[in-house]
């Protein structure tokens, strides 16, 4: 394995090129077949190679990759759950889990093993078939989303024509799993939680989709790799700075995304103080763990989509330099957004139902429509993305932020301070 080490040490080592030799992943459907043709067949003796069942091999390779994927991605929640507990602890001036392993890093693993050995309780009055099916629906849909997210230059499972639209379609099926879980549990808490969740997700899908539309209007493609490719000229070509409207759209997308994954301040479906744990109240053991894993995978997926659409994806912050670029850059940017979600969760109180719906229908949706109109007009004025258009856009964003800050300062300053009793 010495040549491997030399390869790693060489200056122009590129992860995606070295680990995926000769495979052009951009070709979409047939990457598994190409892997067989270019990598497997030349290494086999000729007598075997001529009789090699390529079709069957392709399926096996696809299943193998899916297996690796399903085995690796749950490691992500493993890290995220620990991160969440540590972040929460620091926000509350505690230390968080410290006993299992150094600084408690093995705590989630221990919890996972514990959940694995717990009793798998199925409510006798409920609908057994749907009860057993629901975690799988949610889990499968959460993970199918990852198939279209480009993690790096060639690190993409499948490059659909309709990438972002596919992601929206698949993630809208998660609601069905939530309703299934809530209804089949035959418990009031579960049903209330699932209905709340469905109402919330269906509502917030609209501003989410509308803010994605602003990006699509600028890029003129639904493909995730083309969206990333259009942001390859450094930080000011990132779509968030391209127009003032995408700047607003980013925040609408991110806040709606938090609502889509049911996190505080939008965690009414799982409000502990009101309805125990919402739609997964009756689940125990590994089935509960599946919901938990899916929740954290969703959180990561929403952040990853936000990074891909607005923050340059795996493209770096400076043209020609690999700062914040590639797989490491992508993970850093996504983790920053995930941290932001945790920060919000441990800072803000929960919204009421009417506040939740007001925010969506009375503020986000009109603003998102205005954004689309604005992006259209912007596209007519500046058909090409030039230095001038980016400069004007950044100036407008700067002035807008300063004005918003001043207005906010004045509004909150005028509010009378609470009187000590």
């Amino acid at each position, binding site marked *: 394995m010495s040549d491997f080490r030399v390869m790693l040490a060489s200056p122009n080592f590129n992860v995606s090129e070295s680990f995926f030799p000769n495979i052009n992943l951009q070709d979409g459907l047939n990457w598994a077949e190409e892997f067989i043709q270019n990598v497997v067949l030349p290494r086999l003796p000729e007598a075997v190679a001529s009789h090699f069942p390529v079709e069957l091999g392709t399926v096996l390779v696809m299943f193998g990759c899916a297996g690796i994927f399903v085995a690796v991605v749950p490691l992500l929640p493993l890290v995220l759950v620990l991160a969440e507990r540590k972040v929460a602890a620091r926000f509350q001036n505690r230390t968080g889990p410290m006993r299992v392993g150094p600084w408690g890093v093995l705590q989630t693993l221990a919890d996972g093993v514990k959940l694995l050995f717990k009793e798998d309780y199925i409510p006798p009055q409920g*609908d057994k078939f749907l009860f057993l099916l629901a975690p799988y629906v949610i889990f499968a849909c959460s993970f199918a989303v990852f198939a279209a997210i480009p993690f790096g230059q060639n690190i993409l499972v499948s490059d*659909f*024509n*309709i990438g972002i639209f596919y992601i*929206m379609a698949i993630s*809208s099926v998660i609601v*069905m799993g939530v309703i299934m879980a809530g*209804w089949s549990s035959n418990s009031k808490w579960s049903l209330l939680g699932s209905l709340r969740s*469905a109402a919330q997700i*269906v509502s917030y899908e609209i501003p989410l989709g509308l803010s994605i539309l602003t990006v699509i209007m600028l890029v003129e493609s639904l493909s995730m790799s083309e969206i990333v490719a259009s942001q390859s000229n450094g930080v000011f070509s990132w779509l968030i700075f391209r127009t003032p409207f995408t700047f607003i759209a980013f925040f609408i997308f991110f806040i709606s995304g938090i609502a889509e994954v049911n996190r505080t301040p939008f965690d009414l479906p799982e409000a502990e103080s009101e309805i125990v744990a919402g739609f997964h109240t009756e689940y125990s053991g590994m089935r509960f763990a599946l919901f938990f894993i899916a929740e954290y995978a969703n959180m990561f997926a929403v952040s990853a989509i936000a990074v891909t659409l607005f923050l340059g994806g795996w493209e770096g912050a400076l043209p020609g330099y690999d700062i914040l670029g590639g797989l490491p850059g992508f993970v850093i940017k996504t983790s920053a957004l995930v941290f932001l979600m945790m920060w919000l969760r441990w800072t803000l109180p929960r919204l009421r139902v009417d506040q939740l719906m007001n925010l969506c229908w009375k503020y986000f949706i009109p603003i998102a429509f205005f954004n689309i109109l604005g992006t259209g007009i912007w596209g007519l004025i500046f058909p090409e993305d030039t230095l001038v258009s980016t400069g004007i856009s950044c100036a407008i964003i700067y002035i807008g932020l300063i004005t918003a800050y001043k207005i906010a300062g004045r509004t909150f300053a005028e509010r009378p301070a609470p009187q000590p009793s």
Partner: protein
Amino acid sequence: MEFTLKTFIFYGFALMTIASALVVVTVRNIVHAAFSLMVTLFGVAGLYVFLQADFLAATQVIVYVGGILVLILFGVMMTSGRLEMRIHIERGQLLLGGVVALALLMLLLTVIANTPVWKNLTDDGIELPPTTERIGELILNGPFLLPFEVVSVLLLVALIGATLISRKEVRDE
């Protein structure tokens, strides 16, 4: 007929669609029927992918599964306490339904028989361009501009109507 991986997947989707559609119309429990309908819609989306209509497939899932089916389930869960339903069908209705089904079958068979070339994924080597561009051209820059706008206005009217019906009465005092 050559039996490749793609035909295998195709028959998988076809079987999935037909079997779950049968469950939808035969099962008593209305919630089960709704979830079975989800499988049917997924199967149809899969068949759309086979016809290289990827955009249509995703739209199918997003509109029917993510929107309409959720609404159906909402309606069922909020209104009826009883889920087991015995629906009495009269003979006249049965006859009428049969006639409509037969007419639909004839229509579909005519379309299938009169389509000269089926472009689908089993024809290796044929790579059709993305459908989104052509759909956009047809709707916003072509013959379907007027119908598209009419449908938009219709939806807007429906939206405003729904708001009007559901809002609270403001009483004059």
